[in-house]
């Protein structure tokens, strides 16, 4: 195979790498052909036909996303006929799309809107009947609005190809085609893991998160309650993007300040409870290793992962760490420890979590995670919802003067920070477990083997004479692959970290929509967000969870010891097999 081949685009010759599609080749020499259903991380659909080009010798236009180049290929990308065809195709999509841009969640951030502008659609020639389907609001996390769906199939593909959930598919034919779960079941009753990746990849607003901002605004206007917020690590690494700042800018202090301006009495840091999770989890791991408990131990921080595991890997429930997630640990501490401290009735506390996640909305409502009969987290809003509230309230996040988080649940170590990136929990846990097990300082705190965006990462750490083998998976598809391996080979690993979303929490389903010149799940973007967290870790004086003085304090004042009675009651839980609608335990018919 030659290293370069020659192709002609619009009468100009280019030398390009062979074995690529027309779109890839054109992109590599400075084009950016219009596109819609194409996504570099997903299989080729060839459905939208927006990326069509002319190839000499071919009777019809070809989809540049799908057609491979060959030496001597002559391509035209910009003829009058092509431009008109593309325009008409995009108009056809618009003609079956609600005309409510200015009241739409994705206004200003919609790929279809941008495309319509670029195609120069000023008049509508073909308007007619529009689809009209009920909107599914049954889920705690994801709202499905088929009326805005343009059937590009990205959600279908990410749900199966990346997340291995297979909850979405096309149904019906022709003009009546709809993307839906099996049997058009209400989303709440399906196998949906609530990860929200369908929201991230949707070019329009056919999938959006369930919006709780009005509930939060209402709570914030109440005088009779104490309003408390907590902020997840990856929120601060991404929220700036919603305000036009470049990706990778850490707005930790600005976010705390903005939330206080919104009306929260206390703003706590989920990184504190991440430290708490690590202390509990590292102790749990060592306990399992020492007492011959079930291994490998698998992390339980990711809410989407937990629902996925309950449905698809119930045989591994005993391997799941019993630790609650940092968000839920924080909720529990707010409603007990902190309520005591400020002498408030926990019933009069409204606890709001700001997370990068949509699945945490589901987690917050889980009955297993109740604290003395109350929810630990009353409302959960995503990064996007928080951005909107900040904008709506007229707060200048970009130029605001940063503020610190509140005591006593606001101080965190570098280990708590990196929770937001894939491999972060593992790295944090190793730092603590190493010292607990060996009694010695860890020589190099950076565990490089578990960093980065490889789907499944493996490593081994020598703790004294004991080798601890670990693995990290991000994205549910990778998790499924790793766990199949665990089923086959249960002794291969001691400890496994799983995050439901690609890239970990920085790639969560509640993160800002990507701007121009970027695609959802873009690796550079995920890397920049993660880098913001790793930089914060590097600059922290305290980089190990168990050395966080406020963690020491909470054990002394309240919890007693890791894995103790109080911990057990407030910080741990148990999961059970979960049956989606239509599946009867043990098989059989509905």
């Amino acid at each position: 195979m030659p290293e370069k081949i020659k192709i002609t685009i619009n009468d100009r010759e280019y030398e390009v790498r062979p074995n690529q599609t027309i779109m890839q080749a054109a992109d590599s020499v400075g084009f950016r052909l219009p596109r819609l259903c194409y996504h570099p991380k997903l299989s080729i659909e060839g459905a939208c036909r927006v990326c069509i080009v002319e190839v000499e010798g071919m009777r019809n236009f070809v989809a540049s996303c799908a057609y491979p180049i060959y030496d001597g290929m002559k391509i035209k990308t910009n003829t009058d006929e092509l431009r008109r065809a593309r325009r008409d195709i995009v108009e056809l999509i618009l003609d079956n799309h609600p005309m409510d841009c200015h009241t739409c969640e994705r206004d200003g951030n919609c790929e279809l809107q941008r495309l319509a502008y670029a195609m120069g659609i000023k008049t509508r020639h073909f308007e007619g009947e529009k689809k009209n389907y009920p909107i599914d609001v049954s889920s705690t996390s994801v709202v499905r609005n088929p009326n805005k769906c343009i059937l590009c199939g990205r959600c279908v593909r990410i749900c199966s190809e990346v997340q291995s959930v297979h909850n979405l598919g096309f149904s019906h034919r022709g003009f009546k085609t709809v993307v839906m779960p099996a049997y058009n079941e209400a989303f709440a009753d399906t196998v949906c893991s609530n990860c929200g990746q369908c929201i991230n990849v949707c070019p329009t607003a056919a999938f959006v998160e369930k919006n709780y901002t009005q509930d939060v605004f209402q709570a914030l206007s109440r005088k009779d309650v104490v309003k408390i917020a907590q902020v997840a690590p990856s929120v601060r690494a991404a929220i700036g993007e919603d305000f036009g700042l470049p990706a990778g800018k850490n707005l930790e202090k600005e976010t705390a300040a903005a939330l206080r301006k919104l009306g929260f009495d206390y703003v706590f840091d989920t990184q504190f409870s991440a430290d708490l999770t690590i202390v509990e989890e590292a102790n749990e791991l060592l306990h399992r290793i020492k007492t011959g408990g079930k291994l490998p131990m698998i992390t339980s921080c990711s809410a989407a992962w937990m629902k996925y595991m309950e449905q698809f890997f119930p045989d591994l429930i005993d391997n799941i760490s019993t630790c609650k997630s940092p968000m839920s640990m924080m909720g529990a501490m707010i409603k007990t420890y902190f309520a005591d401290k400020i002498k408030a009735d926990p019933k009069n506390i409204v606890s709001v979590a700001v997370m990068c996640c949509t699945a945490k909305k589901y987690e917050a409502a889980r009955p297993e995670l109740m604290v003395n009969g109350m929810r630990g987290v009353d409302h959960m809003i995503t990064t996007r919802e928080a951005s909107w509230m900040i904008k709506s309230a007229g707060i200048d996040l970009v130029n605001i003067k940063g503020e610190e988080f509140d005591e006593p649940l606001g101080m965190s170590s570098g280990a708590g920070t990196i929770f937001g990136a894939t491999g972060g929990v593992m790295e944090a846990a190793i730092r603590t477990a190493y010292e607990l097990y060996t009694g010695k300082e860890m020589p190099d705190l950076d565990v490089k083997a578990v960093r980065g965006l490889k789907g499944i990462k493996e490593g081994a750490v020598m703790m004294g004479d004991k080798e601890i083998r670990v693995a990290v998976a991000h994205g549910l598809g990778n998790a499924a692959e790793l766990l199949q391996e665990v089923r086959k080979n249960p002794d291969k690993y001691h400890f496994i970290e799983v995050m439901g979303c690609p890239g970990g929490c920085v790639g969560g389903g509640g993160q800002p929509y990507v701007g121009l010149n970027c695609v959802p799940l873009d690796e550079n973007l995920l890397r920049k967000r993660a880098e913001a967290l790793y930089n914060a870790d590097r600059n922290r004086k305290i980089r190990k969870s168990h050395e966080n003085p406020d963690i020491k304090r909470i054990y002394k004042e309240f919890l007693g010891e890791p894995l103790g009675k109080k911990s057990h009651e407030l910080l741990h839980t148990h999961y059970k097999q979960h049956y989606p609608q239509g599946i009867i335990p043990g098989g059989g018919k509905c």
Partner: protein
Amino acid sequence: MHNRSLEVFGKAGYFNSQLRIALRNCGIIDPGDLDDYLNVRGFEALAKVLSGIKSEAVIAEIKRSGLRGRGGAGFGTGLKWELVAREKSDQKYVICNADEGDPGAFMDRSIIEGDPFSVLEGMAIAGYAVGSDKGIVYIRAEYPLAIKRLEKAIEAARKQNLLGKDILSSGFSFDIEIRLGAGAFVCGEETALMQSIEGHRGMPRPRPPYPSASGLFCKPTLINNVETWANVPVIVVEGAEWFSSVGTEKSKGTKVFALAGKINNTGLVEVPMGTTLRHVIYDIGGGIPGSKKLKAVQTGGPSGGCIPADLIDTPIDYESLGKIGSIMGSGGMIVIDEDSCMVSIAKFFLEFTQSESCGKCTPCREGTKRMLEILTRITEGQGKEGDIEKLERLGNMIKKSSLCGLGQSAPNPVLSTIRYFRNEYEDHIKNKKCTAGACEKMLSYVINDKCIGCGACKRACPVNAISGSTKQKHLINQDLCTKCGECYKTCKFSAIDKG
């Protein structure tokens, strides 16, 4: 081996200018009895290739015969075989596409019901030629009898060692299984068909990769239509020279057509390529009933085009039909007489393709819907200036931009009727008039002076739209009239004008 039908049916008008190759045994043998098939030189072709003909030579023979795919596109069969044979793979598949979906076309069903063994034999020969041991017949579940006959035929052939392991002690193994389709029209498209066999929703995928390189379960796959398969044993036995002596320069052999519509002898006809439409319609089909005038012929199924009466001397072959805006398709042939409205006809076919679109690609899913809306309003008297141009603009875009053959050909009925019957469209739009009187919503019924005031029409009208006293001329209230036509049928004095 191909002319026994004449012997049986005699030289009656219907048969004497037909040449039956694919249908050679249909209506002749007992499809449930392998003995009957063996008796008409069945499996001789397979035995011949297994007795020392190299697989390359088999492919060369098929190539020389000039046989082209009978499913619609007319791709060279031998070339297709060669492409699959060239691939190196641990597994290859041979598929029979029996997902006959064109409304009114039933030659595939007829072949499987009347002569299932010839299809199996054709597939086995291809299996030998391309190096595959696994055949699959994809057939729609709506053909229960065909499925039953096929199952029985496979079973019988296996028992006689004509399928299965080590066929006729030659060392070559080939077995066939049946997969049922749920009846989606688009599953006749090869990539959608394979998706369906794999258990997915039947939606086409972009090509390349072509099935010959990566088809079923990502393995090299040879896929041909039932009629194509039925031709194969004859070519092997009678030879490529004989086969290619039939037909035209680029289209060899015969083609089966399903003759339907306004024609005296409806049914399946198999004629040599190059036969004129006139010959098929008048000599074989017996002309048009009620001595009405021929207006057009629609060929190629729902995505074919309409050919006007003045072009019926066109020879039937792939190229000639393409040139005049139609296609061979799977062989549907619908005869249209002067009572039919060409706009309604176009709308009828588009309704079908529109509802059978898989919904994957935008031009086909959304575009055909808009075309249908425009056609609907034209036939309802709501057509607007510029509608014809919109239809042409959408139609041409859909043809060139759609993902698969369904979309690429769906606008054909509309574009071809505009091409040849533009005046009818204009009549509908500008004069709000359907000359054929077929568009109900544009009709009006008016009572003329022949009315004697008998009151029969008044009593027949279901919506009480007719008034008038006895022995006086009656009147139809046009605002109430639903154009049901009851009055027109009832009147014995030709006193009601329809138009």
